[in-house]
């Protein structure tokens, strides 16, 4: 269960004399396990910021975030970090794959952090699912941008998190691969009864979600 209540984020004014910028404004959202939503909106409207707030990587200016019955504002940095490790999978807009680990090791990272045994089978399954099984031993620098994005998606799903946050997961993929990856995302969320939030500019991607929400320049979240 993920619940956002009256969530807001204010940014400092761009120049002295101007009023502070209200990026996110009174956002209420309830998502039940198994639910998978897409968020769309113009560039710079605060979609990534919203995901960061939910992940506990950023602190809200007002309002509450509850995940699995725990209020994020009551947790300290270590508590948030552990919560992220155990419950969340994050695909970042700039996908961030560690350069000194090969693909298998990159994907295995969340399993290691959660001390989950039987890693190899799961890692192989995930790499297979994103179509990179043959490249498991390769270094990130030997891969294309789209391939790296798939590694990031495999890494976000491998530990079967209760909350999957994906920021533009298909931005670098051709339509066919994008469709396959989005299907993987959706199936994985359903299979493990997780909550999924995907931020995207692509209508096709949005169409794979159960419902689509729109974040406007006014900082409010509407049903599309």
């Amino acid at each position: 269960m993920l619940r956002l209540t009256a969530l807001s984020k204010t940014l400092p004014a761009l120049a002295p004399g101007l009023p502070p910028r209200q990026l996110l404004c009174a956002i209420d959202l309830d998502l039940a396990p198994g639910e998978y939503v897409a968020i769309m909106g113009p560039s710079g409207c605060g979609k990534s910021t919203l995901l960061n707030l939910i992940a506990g990587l950023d602190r809200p200016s007002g309002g509450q975030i509850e995940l699995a019955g725990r209020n994020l504002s009551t947790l300290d940095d270590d508590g948030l970090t552990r919560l992220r490790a155990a419950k969340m999978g994050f695909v970042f807009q700039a996908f961030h794959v560690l350069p000194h680990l090969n693909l298998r090791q990159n994907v295995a990272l969340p399993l290691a952090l959660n001390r989950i045994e039987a890693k190899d089978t799961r890692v192989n399954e995930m790499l297979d699912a994103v179509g990179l099984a043959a490249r498991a031993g390769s270094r990130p620098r030997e891969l294309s941008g789209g391939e790296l994005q798939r590694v990031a998606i495999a890494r976000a799903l491998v530990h079967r998190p209760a909350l999957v946050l994906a920021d533009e997961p298909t931005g670098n993929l051709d339509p066919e691969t994008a469709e396959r990856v989005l299907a993987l995302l959706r199936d994985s969320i359903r299979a493990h009864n997780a909550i999924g939030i995907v931020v995207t500019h692509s209508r096709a991607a949005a169409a794979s979600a159960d419902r689509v929400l729109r974040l406007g320049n006014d900082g409010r979240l509407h049903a599309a």
Partner: protein
Amino acid sequence: MNAMRAILARALLGHLAQQPGRALMSVLALALGVALGVAVSVVNRSALDEFGRGLRTVSGQADLEVRGARVGFDELLYPQLALRPEVEIASPLLEIEARVRGAAREGGADAIKLIGLDPLRAIALSPALIAPPAAPAGRGQETAATETSSLPDDDVLFLSPAAARRFAVAVGDEIELQSGASSARFRVGGLLPAVGAGQMLAVTDIATAQWRFERLGVLTRIDLRLREGVAAAPALNEIAAGLPPGVVVATPAQAESRAARLSRAYRVNLTMLALIALVTGAFLVFSAQALNVVRRRSELALLRAIGVTRGALVCWLLLEGALIGAIGSMLGVAGGYALAAVALQFIGGDLGAGYFQGARPPLAFDPWGTIGFVALGIAAALAGSALPAREAARSDPAVALKSGDVADSFARLGRLAPGLASLMAAALVVWLPPLGGLPVFGYAAIALLLVGSVLILPRLARLLFARLPPVPRVVWLSLAIEQLRGAPHLATIGAAGVLASVALAGAMAIMVGSFRQSVDVWLGQVLPADLYLRAARAGESAHFEPAEQAAILATPGVMRVDFLRHQSLLLDPALPQVALIARPIPADVPERALPLLARVTVPAGQVGVLASEAMQDLYGWRLGQRVRLPLAGREIEVVVAGIWRDYARQHGAVAIDLATYRGLTGDMRVNDAGLWLAPQSSTTQVAEALRARLPAEAI
């Protein structure tokens, strides 16, 4: 659990294996510091071991040793001491610093210590100095040699194995020793296998030594064994009370601590150099790690975002520093022992300071010194990586994941207060007095000064960058300047690392250089003559007799001669000997003779002496104070008429006018002569003429 460690180790430390060059400078700087430190401590350990071994060889079983300055004392003291009720055995000794004629002269390689002893007494107190009755290795040769030798049976000496090897002589061979103007041939009667490996020793009968080297009636020390049940401390006090001036009694342990003090200042300076190298290492680790965490910002942020806590990240980054430190330290230990071996081979146990002449000690393992410097090396690396690690853990992962924005990294380094505080502390600490005779706070002030300078560097850099004019036409330059303006902290970290190491290297060079220069200036002032003549260099028993002095004066081309008489005085049994220098000193303008710091006029009818600064520190002498000096067997009261600066003799020196000295002691001999040449004569000509006039071995 282990799987997690393994994968995190790869993720966080993998770059070390893949780009080892980046950590290389840090590793090398730390290795240098550790190597220097280990080398100094190992050489010192080796030298002290060897010195202790030598001491135990010579006065192995003695409870007390009575010794005078190197010129010795009257042997009548021996029966007095031997007859004392608390003394069981007294063993008289005459130690002569000699050299082997015909042996290589450079680096003291021809020096040997000749010990004259009474075998019947010495066998109880110094058994190692008595040859075993039937040394099987040498017996056949010995009989053969006795038949062919032309020397009387008395002129036999026994050599330490090291000396026999160095001078390539076997049992039965002949060897010629020289000390001062006298020399004598001896037959090698045997070896002394119990004498330690590095010792250059020769032993002969005391009467032979006195006779052959014109030291009749003279001893340099008497070893005492006390009767059973006699406590050493009160006996020491009672014996001390009855000793003539200039002769002291001490326990062998006191003598050993004196040896340790001899080279202490030298050693401390070298150790400080090692520590400075370690501080440089810490700075280099800091700048390398700081750039490292900035470069790997998004990697570290990703790890934070997917579940590595701040604490864990700090631990891993510190581990990285410790690893660099450990590698540097290991290299340093290997390098240090290699350096120590080379130093012992070529320079000797006192690192060139000239204290333990002749001995080539074997390399000793110094576990505590080694462990200590390894720990210091790792600590320096940890200190250097602590701040970058904290900075990395504090930075906001969401921001770091977004872009290459690095401007706010290390923003706290821009604060002025810590740097200024450090500089101010340096200004205060520099006034604190030495600790245990060592300028500990002086070194601390240097360290604070360095740290403070590096800390205010970012602020200075920001001021500088802000004032840089725009360079509109040169695109790359204006881009570079904008970059610097945008991230002053980062730019200065890179600059600070380079600057710190360059500055430290410079400081070390300046330190060594200015010391050398001071010594040069000082030597120029103290020894302004054109040409120096020194009696054959084997201790202070070398000298020119009055006839030789006359010959020097009469040499064509010589305009004026300043004769110098060197001697050493033992003023305190726990401290090294003090140099007594008798040379012409004009009573009204003594500053012509020596670099005086202060002086007072000597009251009429009193004898004035000039004391070096070290005498103030070590013996508490003050300007105008009356002190007693043991001269020619008497206590003579003198007035401290001036204090002079002396870079050469850190254990103290006292200068006295040569004529006054001769009047007081009747000692007409001199060791050195400073010659002023007539304007038209050349140095080489005069040197040739002098060689022709003086006995060849005398100069």
